[in-house]
């Protein structure tokens, strides 16, 4: 496409979405970073300016580090970060444990079945995420479906406490994010050459051994992509822990939102966001590498 590469309209075509993303995606992070060094005050907006202006010239820059110091001294924040990382990691692991066999079975079925099953996996994704999380309240409550069924069957004699537990949050996250694990895994497993497994079988490898030595290593890019697609947003998850989770241990997304809405402390909320981004920057960059390779490998 030499002609297109030199055409005069080209810079304009690139500039339009570029400008949009710089203004609405990149600049906002700079603003969050800036405000995280501001002092809170009772006004609108509720933070002090960083630069003091005198006679139209910047006279002094006031960087206020107390927001960050506060995050490290109050145990609430550290424990919320650690808890969020743990919840995201455990949920990602469960997504993998449940999603991998499902994907494997789909990738090994006939083409008609494959399309039907993939549609069944994606279909819930198109219905409301919020309502799917809500559905679990009805199942997990003390007088919910699960407890009623178990009581009626005589398995238990007193209702189990399932709501507002770690378990409920894991279930909510795994349930909502499972398609994000399955789809990249499927894109990977589908490409495997079946003759590799035939060769392994011919050489006397049992199915399990062939799986561990051939399929599993080949599917690592899919595992990485799917895991990051679950793990990164799960760390900052807000809706699921708010509806299903514990009240004595908050996740960091909830802390950020409480700082912002309930305490109206925009600088601390910004500092919480910046620390979360620092935690996630390595996984996000890894995801970008995997994603770029995936999209460019098909050319």
């Amino acid at each position, binding site marked *: *496409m030499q*002609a*297109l590469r030199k055409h005069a*309209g*080209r810079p304009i*075509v*690139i500039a339009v*979405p570029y400008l*949009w*993303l710089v*203004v*609405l*995606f990149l*600049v*906002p992070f700079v*603003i969050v970073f800036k405000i995280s060094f501001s002092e809170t005050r009772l006004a609108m*907006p509720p933070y002090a300016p960083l630069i003091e202006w005198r006679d139209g010239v910047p006279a002094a820059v006031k960087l206020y580090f107390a927001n960050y110091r506060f995050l490290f001294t109050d145990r609430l924040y550290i424990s919320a970060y650690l808890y969020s990382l743990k919840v995201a990691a455990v949920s990602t692991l469960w997504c993998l444990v449940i999603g991998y*066999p*499902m994907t*494997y*079975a*789909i990738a*090994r*079925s006939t083409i008609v079945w494959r399309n039907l099953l993939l*549609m069944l996996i994606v*279909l*819930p994704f*198109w*219905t*409301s995420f*919020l*309502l*799917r999380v*809500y*559905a*679990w*309240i*009805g*199942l997990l409550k003390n*007088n919910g479906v699960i407890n009623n069924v178990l009581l009626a069957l005589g398995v238990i004699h007193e209702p189990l406490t399932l709501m507002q537990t770690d378990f409920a949050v894991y279930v909510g996250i795994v*349930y909502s994010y499972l398609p994000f694990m399955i789809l990249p895994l499927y894109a990977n497993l589908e490409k495997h050459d*079946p003759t590799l497994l035939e060769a392994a079988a011919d050489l006397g490898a049992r199915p399990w051994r062939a799986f561990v030595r051939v399929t599993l290593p080949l599917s690592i890019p899919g595992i990485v992509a799917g895991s990051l697609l679950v793990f990164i947003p799960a760390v*900052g998850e*807000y809706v699921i822990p*708010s*509806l299903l989770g514990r009240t004595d241990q908050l996740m960091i997304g909830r802390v950020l*939102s409480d700082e*912002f*809405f309930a305490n109206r402390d*925009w600088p601390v909320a*910004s500092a919480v*966001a910046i620390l979360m*981004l620092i935690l996630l920057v390595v*996984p996000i960059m890894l*995801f*970008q590498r995997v*994603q770029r390779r995936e*999209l460019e490998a*098909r*050319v």
Partner: protein
Amino acid sequence: MKSGYFSRTGLVIGLAFLYVPILSMMIFSFNNSRLVTVWDAAHSPTFKWYVSLLSNGPILRAAWLSIRVAAAAATGAVVLGTIVGIVLARFGPFRGRTLLSAMTTAPLVMPEVITGLSLLLLFVTLEQLIGWPRGRGVLTIILAHITFTMSYVAVVIQSRLAGFDESLEEAAMDLGARPVTVFSRITLPLIIPAIASGWLLAFTLSWDDVVVSQFVAGPASTTLPMVIFSKVRLGVSPDVNALATLMVLIVALGILISSVWMRAVTKRRERESQLAIAANQ
């Protein structure tokens, strides 16, 4: 090749895990009892929650607002996302390409609270500096939704274009077609299905969003997910079950129609290309 019993059992259990909650929610939407999870066999099934839902003014107004926001956001996201997809798939190397690609993939995984907070602070700062956008409301929600949904459109378009090689476009260029003509006669028809599914994806994401909207919405503009979220935070309520059932049915119908349509388009295109090959021989 056959898969083992292990993975097939896993598939069945996994699908049950995905569908049992939705089915249970749908069943209980016909339950007479206010206690959502206790089946009142004597007076069920009933449609009373559907009646109360459809006469609930705030919910209907919020739903109408959400539809308009999602349609506007999806349209904006398709325009911008399609350009990004084409630029990344077809424009070759240029300065700042890595940054563009990073700004496109990062929103796919960015936690919603961070996106919401950063966009709100942007809007507040902009209002201070240039007086626009004045206050928060429908406009700021749409701008925010365009920004986080356009990445999904871009990825859909990019992977669709990656599936075709550039020879068709190159041939048209060699024959003297201008870039605009190449785009409208070749690239656009190739990616029309991807544009359609990108629009639907963006619409769904916007329609569904509660976290980003909560940050950037003004006091006067409440979208449907915001209403549902504040309702279900207080516990289960049966008319939400009715709402969920309606949404599942609409989505299932929509997917059925679109998959029939996609199949028809693919079939027609295959037939046309076979005819073209036959005509050349």
